[in-house]
């Protein structure tokens, strides 16, 4: 009675513990990300390619000095990507022909709402912060570079020339600065305010508003609103996105969704295989056992039959012997009587 009650209470507490786990904000496995997260809107129609953002980024993150100075315009002549020395780069695209006005596009981590790098990292070195930044923790990084593989935007870079503690290098959206209430370095430095910092939702509103207000200046799409499940860095441009080096074939599937199916099969295999294989094993064993038993039986009655034959043969043999003996005796008696008769008949005459 009392014991059962105590059990019951135990159960309750257990249930309580379970409910203490974080609960799911959105239902049916659909997630809309952190509602108040920050982001940056890059309006390429305003960018003049002055590379102040690159300079500021370099200073704020005290990265090594660039190979060519930031005010060297020739740098823009080739299309670059981010590397271990530059979290962000500005590229020039002569979409209006060599004579026409070029378009500049800033490249850096887009801070996905569902980061591929985080989904890929097997030490959980990447975290999507509620503030919107995707941050990296070098203190646990093993250096497998799966994050570099996974990133659909080819952003993370690796310190290939460090022997002892190579790190993955990528934009942090100046997470520490934002935490202090400062602006990201690049945003603060942009003279044209081509970079707008703010709540992601507001940024989308701004972008839409600009497109609505200047329909002939913008392409009616906000890059990053839906791409790979949405990014906190957004872009609006006047030239088709693919001409500015944007991947327009990335789709809207968030990275974790790509692998969730496969990962879901893991427990199934763990659950079913042992039982299945064990079963097969038992069956095969059983087959063998039965086979053995049958063999044994066969041998047994083979032995019996031969035994019977042997007995019969013996019996017959003894019979025969007996008969012959009797005959011999009879014969002997008869002979004796005859001899006796012969002797009495010869004395009278």
């Amino acid at each position: 009675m009392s014991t059962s009650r105590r059990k019951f209470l135990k159960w309750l507490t257990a249930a309580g513990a379970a409910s203490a786990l974080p609960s799911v904000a959105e239902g049916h496995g659909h997630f809309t990300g952190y509602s108040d997260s920050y982001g940056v809107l890059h309006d390429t129609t305003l960018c003049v390619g002055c590379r102040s953002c690159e300079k500021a980024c370099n200073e704020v993150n005290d990265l090594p000095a660039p190979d060519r100075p930031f005010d060297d315009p020739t740098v823009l002549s080739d299309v670059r990507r981010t590397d271990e020395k530059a979290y962000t780069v500005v590229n020039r695209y002569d979409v209006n022909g060599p004579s026409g006005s070029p378009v500049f596009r800033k490249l850096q981590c887009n801070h996905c709402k569902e980061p591929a790098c985080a989904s890929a990292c097997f030490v959980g070195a990447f975290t999507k912060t509620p503030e919107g930044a995707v941050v990296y923790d070098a203190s646990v990084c093993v250096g497998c570079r799966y994050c570099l593989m996974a990133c659909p935007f080819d952003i993370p870079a690796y310190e290939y020339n460090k022997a002892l503690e190579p790190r993955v290098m990528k934009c942090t959206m100046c997470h520490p600065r934002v935490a202090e209430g400062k602006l990201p370095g690049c945003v603060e430095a942009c003279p044209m305010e081509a970079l707008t910092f703010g709540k992601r939702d507001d940024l989308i509103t701004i972008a839409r508003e600009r497109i609505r207000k200047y329909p002939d200046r913008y392409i009616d799409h906000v890059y990053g609103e839906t791409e790979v499940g949405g990014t906190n860095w957004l872009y609006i441009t006047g030239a088709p996105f693919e001409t500015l080096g944007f991947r327009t074939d990335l789709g809207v599937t968030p990275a974790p969704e790509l692998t969730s199916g496969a990962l879901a099969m893991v427990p199934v295999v763990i659950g079913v295989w042992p039982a299945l294989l064990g079963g097969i094993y038992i069956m095969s064993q059983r087959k063998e056992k039965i086979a053995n038993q049958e063999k044994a039986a066969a041998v047994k009655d083979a032995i019996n039959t031969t035994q019977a034959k042997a007995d019969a043969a013996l019996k017959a043999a003894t019979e025969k012997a007996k008969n012959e003996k009797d005959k011999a005796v009879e014969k002997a008696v008869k002979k004796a009587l005859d001899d006796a008769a012969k002797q009495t008949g010869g004395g009278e005459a």
Partner: protein
Amino acid sequence: MADEPMVVERPLLSKFNVIAGLIILVGLWLTFKRFTGGLGAVSNLDHSNPWGIWIGFDLLCGVALAAGGYTTAAAVEIFNMKKFHAAVRPAILTGFLGYSMVVFALLYDVGRPWRLPYPFAVNQGVTSVMFEVGACVALYLTVLFLEFSPVALEWLGAKKIRAVVVRLTILLTILGVVLSTLHQSSLGAMYLLVPSKLHPLWYSPYLPVFFFVSSIAAGLSMVIFEGSLSHRFFKDKMDDEHRKSANDIVLGFGKGCSMVLAAYFAIKVFGLALGNNWNLLGTGYGLWFMVEMLGFVLLPCLLYAIGVREKNVTLIKWTALWTVLGIVINRLNIVLICFNWQLPADQRYFPHWMEIGISVFVITVGIVVFRFIVTRMPIFFEHPDYKEAH
């Protein structure tokens, strides 16, 4: 007698020893470079091509080809195909060494190898397919070690412990199959994350299944292939039972592999239909895909079948080699050749000779250890004290 081969001795400065020695010396030098100068000093890896032949060849191919271990063990221990019994120990050994080499190579590829336990000890990134691969490989390596340990124990003559381990055989085998199923497929699942970088003809939601099924084919072929090699080089180490059953094994595994390849071909075609990528077959990559599918899946499948029907052991052995080659090509396609296919040619990856050097070094070490073991321990023959013990 069965144990007389053990007394056969080889000259220390044999051709093999000299070459192996040289390779290992170079390897050690490269190792020094790698761990003083960083990955950049010995490889052509860069930000856009973070994975090279160490992952593409040593890891992916290594794991696939080491699948002989669990396939053979499953065949004999679980499906109770006693006639393949002689193949188990060599297969387990190759499996064990194969996985050891994979981990060995990983020590070079990974930025901070001493942190390899972190994913399990420090911070568990369970959302990563790689976490699962890592866990399974680690566990499976242990399993293989245990499965292999009786051999060493027999050699050392530790009867008691051996007995304990042998009693666990079936459990270990089952566990081995579970783990292999998981990580073989998950190696494919790792590439589910890169639809934008892997050519659509090779990218498919079926990738895990492709990898798992092809790994079985690879495993079986490997057993046949290295079986035939062993027969060339270690004949003197083999007892009669081993020699006698050799052809049974080749024919049996050949038949099995043929069926697996047929299934593999089928699901690859289904995958093509699933992605509706028929139109891509016309392109250059499409042709390459056809070469892989027809030349290295369908062809060996048929050759195996012919070989089995005609009891043509030689053909099967050659086909085994061909199949192994095919799997290697498939893995290389996914990691290197058809990865980053959209990048301009000058941004594509080609291995640095030092990378290849380290790969060769790793393989050589593997072979040397294999040779050391088979020349001393009861792999190709039954230890006299344990006749009929398993």
